[in-house]
Each structure stands twice: as C-alpha cells, then as structure tokens.
C-alpha cells in the first residue's frame, strides 16, 4: 500500500484538538510533511 494511502487513513487532530485529515492537505497542492520528534 502506498504511503499516502496509509497516512490518509489515520485519525489525526489539528493544534486546536479538532479532527483533521492528512489527505486534505495534499489534495490540491504538494506538501512537505514534517514529523517532528516532539514539541519543545
């Protein structure tokens, strides 16, 4: 399975705690998706 398909299926939230979806960010433009180690 493609990385994007796996990521699209993950439940995730935005910084406000509202449900969000990774796939909507690359639906219309390319994205640089950075996973940081931790906040702080």
């Amino acid at each position: 399975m493609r990385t994007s398909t796996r990521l699209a299926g993950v439940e995730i939230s935005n910084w406000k705690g509202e449900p969000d979806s990774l796939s909507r960010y690359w639906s219309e433009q390319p994205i640089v998706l950075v996973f940081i180690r931790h906040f702080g």
Partner: protein
Amino acid sequence: MRDRIEDIRALGAELVIVGNGAPSFAEAFREDQNLDCPLLVDPELRAYRAAGLRRGRVEVLSPRMSLNAVRALGAGYRQTSVEGDPWQLGGVFVIRPGGDLMYRYIGREAGDHPAVDDVLEALSADAEPIDEGEGNPWAQVLLGQALSRVVDPFIVSSFDRTGFRIHSLTFRPDDIEVDLSGHRCLVTGANSGIGFETALALADLGAEVVLLCRSAERGEQAAERVREQTGNTRVSVEVVDMSDLGSVRAAGERLASHPVDVLVHNAGVLPDERIETADGLELTFATHVAGPFLLTRLLQSQLEKSDDGRVVFVSSGGMYTRRLNNEDPNWTEREYDGVAAYAETKRAQVVLAKLFAEKLRGTGCGVFAMHPGWADTPAVESSLPRFHRITRNILRTPAEGADTVVWLAACPRLRGESGGFYFDREERRTHLLPLTRESDKDRRKLWKLCVEATESSSGDRLRTAG
C-alpha cells in the same frame, strides 16, 4: 525546514507539521515558533507508525546525538521541556496531489535532518515519484529470514510491530501489485480497524468493495473515507449483524444475487459477560462461527463461479491457547470467560476454514485463515484496555494487521492454494501446544454443530449434537 517555508511556498507547496504531543503543547509550540502553516497532533503515534518512522531509546541516545545537539545549539536552537514522546523519531515526506510520494526521509537518530535542498528538488516540476513497489534485494530477504528465526520463538517480538517489520523484509512487493478491477469483495466488520484497512486496500487495488457493518451510519462514514482516499466510487455498504442469523440470511440472499470474488470474515466481538442472541446462541460463537458459516454457505455458489475466489477468516493468535470446544460452545455449562470464549471461537474459525477448503476443493475458490498479530485497533482498545495500555507502543498499525488479509485476498500466487493458516504472509502451524489438537471427528462435529445452529432458531440443539 521552517526557515525555508517561503522557498517551499514559492514552488507551489505547503509545509505541514505533525507533532506527537497533546493539542495544548501544540498551541504553545505554534506561538513560540510563530508558525503560520498547518500544525497537526498525533499523540497516539498512529501517523508516525503509518509513515514507518522509527522509535526507540537506542536511536535517540546514539553517540551522534551529542554532536547533533552541539550543532543545533550553534545554530541558535534551544531545547526547552520535552512535550510528547521523547523516544519517537521524525521524518520528512513530500506528497503531491494524487498521493504520489516524491521524497521520503526517515530519521535514524535524534537531531537527524535531511538537506532542505533535497526536499526542494523533490518539489520541482521534473521530479519523479518514488516507486513504492520496488523489489527487495536478496540480501534484505536473507536478513529478514535470519531475524525471523530469532524473533519468532517469542510471541511478543513476533506478534508486535517489530515482528512485522522483520517479517516484511521477506515480502515480495509485487505480490499485491495487482489490478482487482472487476472483482467484488465483501468485508465484514469493515467500518474500523483491520476490516476498514482491508476494505481500503482492496478498493485501492480497483475492486468493487462492499462493507458489511452493523451500523448503517458508521458503515457509510467508512465507505465515504474509502472513496475519498482511493478515488474508487464502487464502494458500498450492506447492513448486517453477523451475530443475528436472520440478518445474515437476509443480507446473504441480497449479496448472492451478484458475483462474489472475495469474502473476508473480520467482524469480531469480545464481551465481558455472556450474552445470548435472539437465536439462542452465545454472542461470540454467533458472531465468529455461526454467522460466518451461514454467510459463506449462502454465497458459496457465487464464490465457486469466481475465476479466483477467496474466503479469508481473520482469526487471532489467541486461538493457539485453546482447543476446539464442541461440548459447550454456548457457555451454558461453564462460568463465562469472555477471553476464553473469544479464543475458542477463533480456534473454531481456523478449523472451519479447513473444512470449507475441503468442501470447495476443485471449485477454484481458496479458503484461508490467518491471524494479524497484535494490532492497535479500536476493538482492542475497547475490549482489552489494560493490554492496550501496556502494549500500545509496540502494537502494529491496523494496516499492518490487515496486510496478510489483503495478500490472501489478492495475491495471484495463491491461486489454487487453499486450507492454510497464515501469519505475515507465511503459512504457519495451527498448534503450539499438544493439548490443543483436535481429531478429525472433532472437526466433523463442528461442521454438524454449525449446520444445526444455522438451521435452528434455538441454541438447544448445540447440546445434543453428536
């Protein structure tokens, strides 16, 4: 990367950041870093795992960490408190519309960062996507086989995420690079967890997929997610309660009016207390054994007509602990134990798969059973909360749990095979303990029990079947 955000935007892209702390930490981080790009949070590390990112003390406390820390200090970065999982490493991906992966960087140790120019190059107009179906070199396969021999004797290191990563070194990527257009696949319990990931993967391969769910609302939400993520519109929902034989019968009759190529029995329950269904059956037995037995029989003629039909029973590694129990499948003679009932019915599924394989021999339809290892699914979290709390950092993703299901449903090399029990794309033995072995007579008795249970509206006959 944040410092080059304008360069990223000049190329028509956006920077999206994912962190693993709570939203409250994210808010402070966003203000502190003055971010104006999307910032997402993944405290459960699900996206991190789906992306294949590393985690571990050895990786974080590596000798190079000190050097990377000095470099960061020199560049003006100051570490405040650690807010999130301190052992999780990061990574960078470039994804373009349509889902093509243009760049991938998996962090190997703390302070590890890709060259930003490499990332920007992946955004250029003439960049080529990464071929995610690249083959495994023979050295990688040999390494995977050697490591498997080390971890497989131990359940924890075999069933967990580490086990999947080791076993997957031996996978042939082209095994499920197939076009399932024209195939119709049915998946029970498909609104979440392994069932959802199975439906998603089969739709991604072009199949028409029917999600069999108890709840119309949850089923439709799941179906919509599958359509959105795959672009495949031939995804529908059939409302059916696998524990209710009337519901199974009605759904089966509707579904049998069209071709069926793949049937995945994934729906599962693990109740704390004994619950008796309207048919007089214990709930676990009804959901895992009687319901799937009936549905398979109702769809058998369509499966036999398929050019390459497949039936997959999603069992559990817990079945290794129990022997087939035909004497009291309804738990009327014993004090109820939900975990034991679950494991016994998962054992029964493995036996049923073999029995159906015998019945369908020569028809071109293969029947298989498998277990998914330890996967992080909503069902595990709700049914086994303590287990989930202890193991959640080593659990497989639902997609990893579904991998062998999808492989059994789609891999062309399995055409003509039938009756095996699989884990991580390898056929495995079905007994680890001598006392769990059943006789051929026991297996025939299970079949008879299922016939009588599905032909009777009362569970009483289960006690007298000989």
